[in-house]
């Protein structure tokens, strides 16, 4: 038996899907989180006597006639795959509006069971619905549930399986279209008239609620943005300086700094393993992977805090807040959702651009989303914060502010180059504020931790082993006494001149940046391997070996370079898929590369002038690069203007 979950965005389909299947798919307290269909078997306790039951979670849709990419997926599955039963999740917090899609689903002919979710909100607001009368009008069963509290689920599934076994045909509601009336208008009229009959009590929508009062502060046009930055600073300070930092310090310095390497070295020496193999395993594999895994506690604390914030409904207000700024650069607030999702990982962030209807807006958002620091970049940010700015809690949040500025300026440039029409208006449904679920936050936290560990034990392990081999061996495949004669040094030397305008000298930094293209955590892992060969000091120690390669200004510039140049390979693949056009992919990658490079040059050269009162390394090459970039932009702007005026 195949059961599809369909309903409006943010009605709680994925929450119900997770409850029914035991999965931990990403749930967000805003519309547009699910942009792809998901499939999993129904948990045994709900499938009694039904045999094999598959649950399909579909992206949210307001109508069966698709307007956006993910709505098209929902339509295709419902009409093409013909599930045995459709569970239509109706949002109790937006009851009337949800019924528009319900009436369309009832016309498809597939048996429908309506699950009124968030029934607690419905009751709390003082609404009362005569479900029996509504059931008779729609000709299908209706069950009230609260998916996040798992109430009413057994009753719902009992009804669904009963309906599925009958294999009947759903009767369509009798919507009468008067002469000259559009079908959709008739549908809306039918719903309004029906609700007058079945809605026993209706809450007063004109009354100002506590939620409205909070919104007036957190989404305020002046105070909203500082409040947002303060919240992010508090989350970062707690994660990096507080509990997360403390736990990461222990894992980095004690566990992977002393206990594991000492134990392994002792063991290998005891059984007589060749010193080169010992170094490969301890310094290369364990050292590199350990340098990344060391940040796991910090990342878990951070994502726990972010999940609480998101679940509370605050992040949706951030989207509304940003809409004001985004409109000015030709984007709508809809573009902020992919960027917020992208703060976890750029890939689902890029995928979330699917909810944007306008092609140009979608492409620009796809290019800008990877500028938001994702989870993979956190170890890099934290490492540089710990070593160069141990007393400052502003470095982490400052990267977010910098990302915001880059997105605004980048958006303006892209709009000037590629967009010739005004942006669409943006309507976002604000979910109710709620006490965030600790269970949800813990699930999200362990989910991210699992992804982090899987990545560290696969691609990062392989890359680190390769990097260790390349820094320990020459092209003749013989071990080298000096790293500068290694394969990695030879390859890094080719690219090293490109970093001179950024004030950075050394093949190590070029090699590190290249490995970061594979996965951003490799920046930390590669530095750990390279420095382990020359120093026994911990990579994370404030003022440690890393300070021989950078001063605080160039360290911040190097951080910006690695954070704002194109993301990892997997995210580039997602960009290609969403843009659907190689030409746009190359434009996007070229733009990201140039932005990361130029921002790093500006930070390094201006920062050196301001902080140290002298010109930095590579000042003249930097001026040349900046001039060439300004000329290139001017030429491209003129070309775009000619096209616009043609």
């Amino acid at each position: 038996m195949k059961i599809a979950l369909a309903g409006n965005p943010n009605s709680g389909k994925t929450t119900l899907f997770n409850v029914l299947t035991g999965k931990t798919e990403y749930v967000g307290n805003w519309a547009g989180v699910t942009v792809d269909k998901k499939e999993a078997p129904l948990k045994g306790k709900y499938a009694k006597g039904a045999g094999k039951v598959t649950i399909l979670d579909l992206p949210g849709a307001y109508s069966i006639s698709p307007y956006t990419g993910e709505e098209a997926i929902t339509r295709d599955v419902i009409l093409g795959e013909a599930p045995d039963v459709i569970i239509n999740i109706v949002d109790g917090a937006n009851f009337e509006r949800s019924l528009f899609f319900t009436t369309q689903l009832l016309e498809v002919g597939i048996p429908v069971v309506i699950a009124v979710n968030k029934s607690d909100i419905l009751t709390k607001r003082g609404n009362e619905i005569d479900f029996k009368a509504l059931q008779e009008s729609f000709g299908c069963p209706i069950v009230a549930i609260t998916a996040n509290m798992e109430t009413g689920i057994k009753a719902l599934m009992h009804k669904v399986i009963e309906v599925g076994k009958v294999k009947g045909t759903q009767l369509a509601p009798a919507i009468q279209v008067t002469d000259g009336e559009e079908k959709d208008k008739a549908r809306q009229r039918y719903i309004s008239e029906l609700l007058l009959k079945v809605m026993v009590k209706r809450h007063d929508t004109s009354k100002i609620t506590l939620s409205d009062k909070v919104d007036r502060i957190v989404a305020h046009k002046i105070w909203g943005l500082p409040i947002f930055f303060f919240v992010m600073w508090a989350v970062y300070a707690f994660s990096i300086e507080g509990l997360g930092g403390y736990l990461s310090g222990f894992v980095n310095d004690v566990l992977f700094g002393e206990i594991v390497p000492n134990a392994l070295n002792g063991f290998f020496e005891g059984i007589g393993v060749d010193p080169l193999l010992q170094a490969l395993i301890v310094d290369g594999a364990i050292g590199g992977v350990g340098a990344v895994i060391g940040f796991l506690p910090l990342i878990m604390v951070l994502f726990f805090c972010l999940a609480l914030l998101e679940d509370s409904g605050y992040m949706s207000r951030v989207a509304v807040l940003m809409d004001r700024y985004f409109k000015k650069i030709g984007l709508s607030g809809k573009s902020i959702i992919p960027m917020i999702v992208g703060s976890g990982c750029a890939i689902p962030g890029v995928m979330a651009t699917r909810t944007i209807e306008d092609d140009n807006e979608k492409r620009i958002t796809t290019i800008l989303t990877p500028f938001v620091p994702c989870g993979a970049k956190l170890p890099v940010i934290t490492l540089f914060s710990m070593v160069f700015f141990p007393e400052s809690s502003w470095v982490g949040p400052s990267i977010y502010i910098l990302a915001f500025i880059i997105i605004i300026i980048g958006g303006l440039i892209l709009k000037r180059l590629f967009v010739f029409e005004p942006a669409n208006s943006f309507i976002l449904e604000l979910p109710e504020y709620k006490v965030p679920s600790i269970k949800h936050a813990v699930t999200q936290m362990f989910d991210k931790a699992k992804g982090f560990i899987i990545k560290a034990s696969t691609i990062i392990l392989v890359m680190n082993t390769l990097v260790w081999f390349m820094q320990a061996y020459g092209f003749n495949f013989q071990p080298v006494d000096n790293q500068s004669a290694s394969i990695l040094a030879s390859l890094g030397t080719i690219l090293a001149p490109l970093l001179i305008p950024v004030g950075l000298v050394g093949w190590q930094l070029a090699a590190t940046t290249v490995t970061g293209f594979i996965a951003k955590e490799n920046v930390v892992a590669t530095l750990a391997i390279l420095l382990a060969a020359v120093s026994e000091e911990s990579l994370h120690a404030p003022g440690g070996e890393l300070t021989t390669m950078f001063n605080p200004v160039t360290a911040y510039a190097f951080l910006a370079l690695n954070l704002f140049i194109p993301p990892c390979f997997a995210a580039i693949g997602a960009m290609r898929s969403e843009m659907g056009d190689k030409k746009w992919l190359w434009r996007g990658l070229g733009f990201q590369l140039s932005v990361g490079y130029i921002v790093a040059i500006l930070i390094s050269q201006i920062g050196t002038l301001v902080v140290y009162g002298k010109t930095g390394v590579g000042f003249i090459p930097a001026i040349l690069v900046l001039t060439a970039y300004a000329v290139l932009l001017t030429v491209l702007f003129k070309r775009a203007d000619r096209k616009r005026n043609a």
Partner: protein
Amino acid sequence: MGATLVVGLIFAGILFFAGRKAFSDMKKGKCSGCSSCSSKSSCTSVDIKEIKF
């Protein structure tokens, strides 16, 4: 020599499986290239059909 061989083989085995997993995930468009990714199945494989109004 024996210990080096045994440890080397075990490490090579771990590396082989790690590499195979990373490669197959990348090939299938899964998110192994990006940690803390919330997408469980695949990053890039969905074909969006042309929308007709």
